[in-house]
C-alpha cells in the first residue's frame, strides 16, 4: 500500500514558543484612569513541587502533541499564581490600546499595532462595559470585600494596582472596578443606543432589498449564478460607496452582568476594557515575514479565538465576584484567565504548526493542468484501496454521503455552465462572470474561500433570508420563526493508523472544495525600484516641462514620460505619444483632446506662464518630465526615448523660472483666500464638483500571477495532526479523546463567534473513525446523544454508493483515470439535476411520497437528506419545507 502524504506542509519555519503570546487586560475608567487587570508577563505559577512551573516555559516540541486540556489533570488542585510587578512597557501599551483621546463610540473597536523593537504585533479589542443591576446578595459580597480591602490598604482606592503589587508581590486585588460598578448613572442611555443600531441594521437590510437580485429560478440557466450572487452580495455589503453600514450586530460589549441578575441591564459608558494579544515576532527576517503572512491571512480565525478568550475573561470576572475571600478570589480569577489563555495559545500554536495536506486533490487538480493525469490516477487508486478496506461497513459511501451533504461547495462546481469550455471539455470553464465581478466589484477572495470551505448552506440564503424577513414584516409573521440558515461544517478523521487516516484525508480533499486563489506579485527586482510602474511618478524634485503644441495640426494629448528606460518602453505602448509621427494614439485620449481643443484653441498661442495659469492642461500637449532637472538633461542626451523630444533641451534657467511660476500661482491662490474650509458641508463639496477632473492614465498593473501556495484553502485542510484542531475544515487525529472533550463547546463557539463574518445558525462536525469504520455527524443543536456517543450515524445514500461503485468499476476496467474522474463529475452533476427535480417536486407538496420519488425520480429515502441539502443551495425554500 502506498502512503498518500509523503511530505506535509506546515506554516511554521521555526519553533514557536507559547510564551510569545502575551495577554493584557486593561481598564480605562474615567474616574480612576487606567489599570492593568491582567498581564500574563507578570504572572508566575507558584507550585510547591516544581520551581519553574511556568507552563509557558515548556512548549511542546514540533512533532509532539500539544494538549489543550493540560489543566484537566491538575483539576483537583488548581495551580497558584503569583503576580509580580508588571513589565515596564504596560503604560505605553495602554496608551496604544486606548489611544490618547478617548472615543465616545460605544461599540467594540479593533486595533492592530506593529511594534518595531522588540518586534511584536499587538491585536486589541476595546469594549464598553455592561454591568448587570446587582441583586442584593452580590452587592453585599462586593461591598464586603471592598471594605475589607480598604481597611487593609487605605490607599488602594487611589492607586490600587501599585499598592497591591507592593504588598508581597502578590496581586491580591485588582478588580476594584467591580465594587464600583453599581449602575446608578445613565439608565436610559442603553435604550437609545439600541435604537441606533436598530436603524443601522434596517439600513443595511433596505440596501440589500434595493439591490436587484435575479429571481430564484433564473439561476438554472447559469450555473455560476449562486456563486456570483454570493460574491456580489459580499462586495455590496462591504462597499464604501454607500458609506459605512454596520452589517450585523456590532453591539459587542464587555459583559459583566451576572446571568442571574441581568433583568435590568444598564450601561456605564465611561468605562472601557481592552483585551490585547501581543505576539513576539521571530527575530529573523524570513521567519518574521512568514509569521506575519500567516497572521494577517488567518486573521478571522485569530479574531474568533480572541472573542472566545474575551468570553472566558468575562466569565472569570463574574464568577470571582461571588467569592468573598479576596485572595481566593484573585486565585480563581487568575486560574480561569490563565486557563483560557493557555487554550488560546495552544490553538494558535496548533494552527501555525500543524501539518497540512501537502497535495489536496481538488486544488491541485485545478491549479496544475499538466499533472492532472497523474493526480487522477493516484486519486482513484487511493479511493479504490479505501473502498476495499471498508467494503463491509460501506465506510466510504457513508463518509462521502456526509461530506457531500454538509460540505456543499462542490455544488456550484458541477452546475452546468452556459459558457462553452475554454479549452477542452474536461477542463472546467473558469467562471467568467465571477472573474468580471471580482474586477469591477472587489470582494475579498479570502473570505469567499473561507465561506466555501466552511459553509454548508450558502450565503446566498442570506439574501433570501432578508427578503423573507421583509416579507415577514409586511405580512405579519406569516412564515413564523425563522432561524438564520447558514450552517457550517468540519470533518475530522480519527484513527490510529496514520497512513489510513491520511488516505481518507487525501480522498476527501477532492470532495471538500474551494476555489483556487492566485496571488499577483510584482516581479522580483522591480519591486524595490522607485522608478518602476509601481510608482509611475517618481517623487523626486522634478521639473514640469510644459510646452505649447508646436504643430497646430497635431492632436493634443497628455503624455507622461518617465526617466527610466524600461518604463518608457512600457508607457509607450499604453500611453499616447504626443509626437506627430507616432502612430499609437489611444482613442479615448484623442477624443478628449479634440473636444477640449475645439473650445479653447486660443490658449495654444500662450507662453508657459499662460499655460500654467490655465486650468485645463489637457488642452495642450503637455509633457511631464519627471526627475531632477539634471537627470532630465542626461536622459535627453542619452535618450531618443520619445519621438517628440520636446523639453529635453530646456536649460536650467527656464526650468527654475517655471518652478517659481508654479509657486507664485499657488501662493496667489491662497492669497485670494478662496480656501476650501475643512468644515465645508459635504453637500456643498458635492455640488462643487461640476468641473471635470484632469484625466491621468492609470499606471499599468504588471504582475506575475502565481498560485498562492499558502492560501487559506490549503491552510484549512489539515493533515494528520497530533490533536483535534477547531479551525480546520478537514484534518485527522489519532484519538477522539480530545475531540470528546472540546467538540461540543467548539461547535457552540462557532455559532456564537463565527469566523465567517456573518451569523451562523448551526455548526456541524463529521467524525469519521477509521478504526471502527463509523461515520457520525455531530451538531451544535442537539446536545444529548444516546449511549455517550458523539453524534448520529450517517445513513448511506444509495445514489452516492452507486456513484462510487460505478466510478471504481470503470477504473477497474482500466479506463483512463482522467475519464473516470470526468465520469465522477458527470455523476455529481446528476445529483445536482436530481436535487432540482426534488426541489420542484416539493413545491406545493404537503406530503412527500417516497415511493413516488423513487419510481419517477429515482430518489430513495436514503438520498433525501443529501438531495435536500443540495437543493437548499439553489432553492432555499427546500430547507424550510424539510425542517
Amino acid at each position: 500500500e502506498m502512503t498518500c502524504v509523503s511530505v506535509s506542509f506546515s506554516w511554521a519555519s521555526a519553533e514557536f514558543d507559547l510564551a510569545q503570546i502575551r495577554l493584557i487586560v486593561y481598564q480605562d475608567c474615567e474616574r480612576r484612569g487606567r489599570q492593568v487587570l491582567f498581564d500574563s508577563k507578570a504572572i508566575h505559577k507558584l507550585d510547591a513541587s516544581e520551581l519553574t512551573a511556568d507552563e509557558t516555559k515548556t512548549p511542546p516540541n514540533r512533532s509532539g502533541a500539544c494538549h489543550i486540556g493540560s489543566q484537566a489533570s491538575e483539576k483537583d488542585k488548581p495551580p497558584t499564581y503569583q503576580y509580580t510587578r508588571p513589565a515596564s512597557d504596560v503604560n505605553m501599551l495602554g496608551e496604544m490600546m486606548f489611544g490618547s483621546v478617548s472615543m465616545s463610540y460605544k461599540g467594540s473597536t479593533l486595533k492592530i499595532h506593529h511594534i518595531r523593537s522588540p518586534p511584536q504585533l499587538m491585536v486589541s479589542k476595546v469594549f464598553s462595559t455592561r454591568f448587570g443591576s446587582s441583586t442584593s446578595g452580590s452587592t453585599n459580597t462586593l461591598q464586603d470585600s471592598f471594605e475589607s480591602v480598604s481597611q487593609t490598604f487605605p490607599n488602594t482606592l487611589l492607586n490600587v494596582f501599585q499598592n497591591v503589587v507592593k504588598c508581597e508581590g502578590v496581586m491580591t486585588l485588582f478588580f476594584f472596578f467591580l465594587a464600583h460598578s453599581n449602575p446608578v448613572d445613565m439608565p436610559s442611555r442603553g435604550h437609545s443606543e439600541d435604537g441606533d443600531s436598530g436603524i443601522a441594521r434596517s439600513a443595511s437590510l433596505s440596501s440589500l432589498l434595493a439591490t436587484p437580485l435575479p429571481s430564484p429560478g433564473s439561476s438554472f440557466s447559469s450555473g455560476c449564478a449562486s456563486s456570483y450572487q454570493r460574491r456580489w452580495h459580499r462586495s455590496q455589503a462591504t462597499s464604501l460607496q454607500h458609506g459605512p453600514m454596520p452589517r450585523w450586530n456590532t453591539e459587542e460589549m464587555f459583559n459583566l452582568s451576572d446571568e442571574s441578575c441581568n433583568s435590568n441591564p444598564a450601561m456605564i459608558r465611561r468605562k472601557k476594557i481592552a483585551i490585547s494579544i501581543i505576539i513576539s515576532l521571530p527575530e529573523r527576517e524570513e521567519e518574521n515575514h512568514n509569521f506575519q503572512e500567516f497572521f494577517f491571512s488567518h486573521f478571522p480565525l485569530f479574531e474568533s479565538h480572541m472573542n472566545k478568550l474575551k468570553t472566558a475573561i468575562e466569565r472569570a470576572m463574574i464568577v470571582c465576584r461571588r467569592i468573598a475571600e479576596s485572595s481566593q478570589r484573585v486565585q480563581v480569577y487568575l486560574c480561569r484567565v490563565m486557563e483560557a489563555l493557555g487554550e488560546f495559545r495552544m490553538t494558535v500554536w496548533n494552527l501555525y504548526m500543524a501539518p497540512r495536506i501537502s497535495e489536496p486533490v481538488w486544488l491541485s487538480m485545478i491549479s496544475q493542468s499538466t499533472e492532472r493525469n497523474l493526480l487522477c490516477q493516484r486519486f482513484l487508486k487511493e479511493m479504490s484501496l479505501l473502498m476495499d478496506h471498508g467494503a463491509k461497513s460501506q465506510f466510504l459511501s457513508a463518509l462521502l454521503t456526509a461530506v457531500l451533504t454538509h460540505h456543499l461547495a462542490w455544488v456550484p462546481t458541477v452546475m452546468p455552465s452556459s459558457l462553452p469550455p475554454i479549452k477542452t471539455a474536461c477542463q472546467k470553464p473558469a467562471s467568467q462572470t465571477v472573474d468580471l465581478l471580482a474586477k469591477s466589484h472587489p470582494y475579498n477572495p479570502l473570505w469567499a474561500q473561507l465561506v466555501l470551505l466552511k459553509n454548508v448552506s450558502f450565503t446566498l440564503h442570506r439574501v433570501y433570508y432578508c427578503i423573507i424577513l421583509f416579507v415577514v414584516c409586511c405580512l405579519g409573521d406569516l412564515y413564523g420563526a425563522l432561524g438564520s440558515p447558514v450552517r457550517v461544517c468540519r470533518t475530522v478523521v480519527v484513527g490510529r493508523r496514520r497512513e489510513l487516516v491520511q488516505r481518507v484525508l487525501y480522498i476527501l480533499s477532492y470532495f471538500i472544495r474551494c476555489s483556487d486563489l492566485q496571488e499577483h506579485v510584482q516581479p522580483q527586482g522591480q519591486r524595490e525600484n522607485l522608478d518602476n510602474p509601481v510608482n509611475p511618478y517618481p517623487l523626486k524634485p522634478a521639473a514640469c516641462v510644459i510646452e505649447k503644441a508646436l504643430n497646430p495640426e497635431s492632436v493634443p494629448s497628455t503624455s507622461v514620460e518617465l526617466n527610466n528606460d524600461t518604463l518608457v518602453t512600457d508607457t509607450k505602448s499604453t500611453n499616447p505619444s504626443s509626437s506627430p509621427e507616432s502612430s499609437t494614439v489611444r482613442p479615448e485620449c484623442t477624443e478628449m483632446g479634440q473636444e477640449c481643443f475645439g473650445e479653447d484653441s486660443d490658449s495654444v498661442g500662450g507662453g508657459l506662464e499662460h499655460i500654467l495659469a490655465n486650468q485645463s492642461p489637457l488642452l495642450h500637449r503637455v509633457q511631464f518630465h519627471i526627475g531632477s532637472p539634471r537627470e532630465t538633461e542626461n536622459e535627453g542626451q542619452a535618450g531618443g526615448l520619445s519621438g517628440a523630444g520636446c523639453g529635453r533641451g530646456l536649460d536650467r534657467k527656464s526650468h527654475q523660472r517655471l518652478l517659481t511660476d508654479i509657486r507664485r500661482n499657488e501662493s496667489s491662490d491662497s492669497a485670494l483666500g478662496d480656501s476650501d474650509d475643512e468644515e465645508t458641508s459635504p453637500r456643498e463639496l458635492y455640488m462643487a464638483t461640476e468641473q471635470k477632473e484632469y484625466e491621468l492614465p492609470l499606471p499599468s498593473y504588471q504582475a506575475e500571477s502565481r498560485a498562492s501556495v499558502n492560501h487559506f484553502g490549503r491552510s484549512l485542510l489539515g493533515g494528520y495532526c497530533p490533536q483535534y484542531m477547531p479551525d480546520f475544515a478537514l484534518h485527522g487525529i489519532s484519538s477522539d479523546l480530545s475531540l470528546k472533550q472540546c467538540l461540543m463547546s467548539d461547535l457552540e463557539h462557532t455559532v456564537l463567534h463565527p469566523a465567517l463574518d456573518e451569523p451562523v445558525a448551526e455548526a456541524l462536525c463529521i467524525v469519521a473513525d477509521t478504526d471502527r469504520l463509523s461515520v457520525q455527524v455531530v451538531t451544535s443543536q442537539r446536545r444529548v446523544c444516546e449511549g455517550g456517543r458523539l453524534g448520529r450515524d450517517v445513513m448511506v445514500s444509495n445514489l452516492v454508493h452507486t456513484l462510487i461503485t460505478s466510478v471504481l468499476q470503470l477504473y477497474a476496467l482500466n479506463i483512463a483515470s482522467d475519464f473516470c474522474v470526468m465520469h465522477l463529475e458527470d455523476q455529481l452533476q446528476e445529483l445536482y439535476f436530481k436535487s432540482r427535480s426534488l426541489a420542484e417536486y416539493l413545491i406545493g407538496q404537503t406530503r412527500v411520497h417516497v415511493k413516488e420519488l423513487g419510481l419517477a425520480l429515482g430518489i430513495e429515502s436514503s438520498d433525501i437528506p443529501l438531495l435536500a441539502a443540495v437543493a437548499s443551495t439553489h432553492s432555499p425554500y427546500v430547507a424550510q419545507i424539510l425542517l
Partner: protein
Amino acid sequence: MNALVALCHFCELHGPRTLFCTEAVHPPSPSPPQPGPAIPGDRDREADREGEGLTMRANSSATQGADMCEGCRSLPASHPGFVSVDGETGIRYLSHQHPRQPQLFSVVRQACVRSLSCEVCPGREGPIFFGDEQHGFVFSHTFFIKDSLARGFQRWYSIVVVAMDRIYLINSWPFLLRHLRLTIQSLQNTALKVFDSEQCVCPQRAVRMNSAFSPAVFPHQRSGNAARSLTSLTQHPNLWASLHSSFSWLLKACGSRLTEKLLEGAPTEDTLVLIERQTEQEEEMSGWDGAEGGVSNPQPSQSESVQAKDFQFDDGRQEDILGPKFKSLRHLRQVLGASDFRQLAWHVLMGNQVIWRGADPGLIQSAFNVLKALLPVGCVRAVPYSPHYEEAYRCNFLGLSPDVPIPAHVSSSGPTLLNKMEVALSNENLSVEVVSLCLLCLKEEWMNKVKVLFKFSKVDGRGKEDTQKVLALLGATGPGEEDNVRLLKFWMTGLSKLYKSHLMTAVRVGERTLSQ
C-alpha cells in the same frame, strides 16, 4: 478595492487635516442606492460626528471661518482634481482634497483625526490598524517630513486606507505596508534633499539660536512659515498628480492582488451541441453574406440564445402557433392514449423516423416540439413540414401534408428510460415542471452512460466481453437490454464534436506519455 486612500497632515496651527484623497468610484449598479441624505443612517452619523470626542470639537472650533493655511491644502480650490479610468472595469479613481461622496466625508475626517490625534504609534512613525463597524476600518501609516522651518524641523503626516471590509483590509496589511512605505520613503527622501539644500543656504538652527526669544512675537514669527505646503517641502510641482497615480495604483493593485479561480460544472452536451450548431449556422450565414450581399435572417446572438435555452421546452416559438397545439408530453399522451403514445415515444427514443401527417402544420410543429424534449439536442433533426418525403438519415421528425406520398421502403418490450419516463408521465401527482426536470435527469443520466460507452467502444475499441461488463455497470443490461443498447448507440450520434475530439486527443496524449 472597496477602499479609499487619503494623505493627512497634522497642521501645527489647525490640527489634523485631510490633504488629498483618492477614491474608487465603481460603475453604477443596475439600481444604485439613493445618494446623499436618502441613505439611511446618514443623520445618525452626523449626530455622532457632532458628539465625537474632544478632538473633533476642539478642531471644529479652531477652524471656524477661513482659518486655513497652505499646509492644510493640496490642490487649489479651483483645481478640478484628477481622474484615472480603468478601462477594463470602468472603475474611476478620483482624487481631490476631500472625498466627493458626501457620506465619505465624515468617514475620512474621522480616520484622519484618529490617525493623527487619537491613536498612539510607538515611535510616532509606522503602521496601525484601527476601526469599528460604524466608522469603517482604517490602515494608517504615520510619518515625518523634513521642514527646515517647522518646529523640530519636521512635520507629521499620515496615509490612511479606509474600507468597510475589515477582513480584507487586515489581509492586505503586508501588501499595503510594503507599498505605502515606498511612497512614504520617496516623499521623505525628496523632502530631505530640499531640506538639506535649504539648510545650506540658510541654516535655521543658527538663525533660531541667534534670534532673541520673545514669547509675544514667537507665534506670529512662525505662523507664516507654518503654512508651507507639501509641494513646497518637496519642490515637486507634480506631487499631487504623482500621489494620485500612486494611490490609484494602490487601490487597483490591492483589489486585484488576489484572484479567485472559481470553477463551475462543464456545460451539458445539449449546451455544447447548441453552441456548435449556432456557430455552424453563423459561419454559413457569413458565407452567404459574402456571396450574395447579405440575407438578413435575424438570428439571435449566440450568448442570447444560449442564455435563453431551456431544452425541455425548446423555445418560445410554440406561442406563435395559432390553432390547436400540444402543450406538453402529458397532453400529447392524453390525446394519443397511453399505448399509442408509448409506441410513438419508443420510436422517437430509438431514433426511428417519426412521420406526422396532417393538414395543420402548427399542430405538427407543436407535437414535434414536445417530442424533441425526449432526445438529446444532438439527436434531433426535424423537418417540421415538408412538401415531399425526406430520408430518415436527414431527419427523424418529419411533418408531411396528407397528400404527400411516402416511399415504399419506409415502413417496421422497450428501453429502461422509456419505462421510467412513463411512470413520471402517468403520475398525475407530478406537475409538468417536475416531469420535465425528471426527464432532464433521465436524459443526463443516459447521456453519461453514452459517454462511457463511446469512450469504451469507439475510443478505446474494447472487445465485446468488456463492453458487456460496462453495460452491466451502467445498468443497461437485464430486461430491455437490446433496446437500451439501441438507444445508447443512437444517442451516441448526439454527442458534441468537442467532446468526441477531446476524448480522441486525450487518448493520443495518453499514448504519447506512455511511450515516453
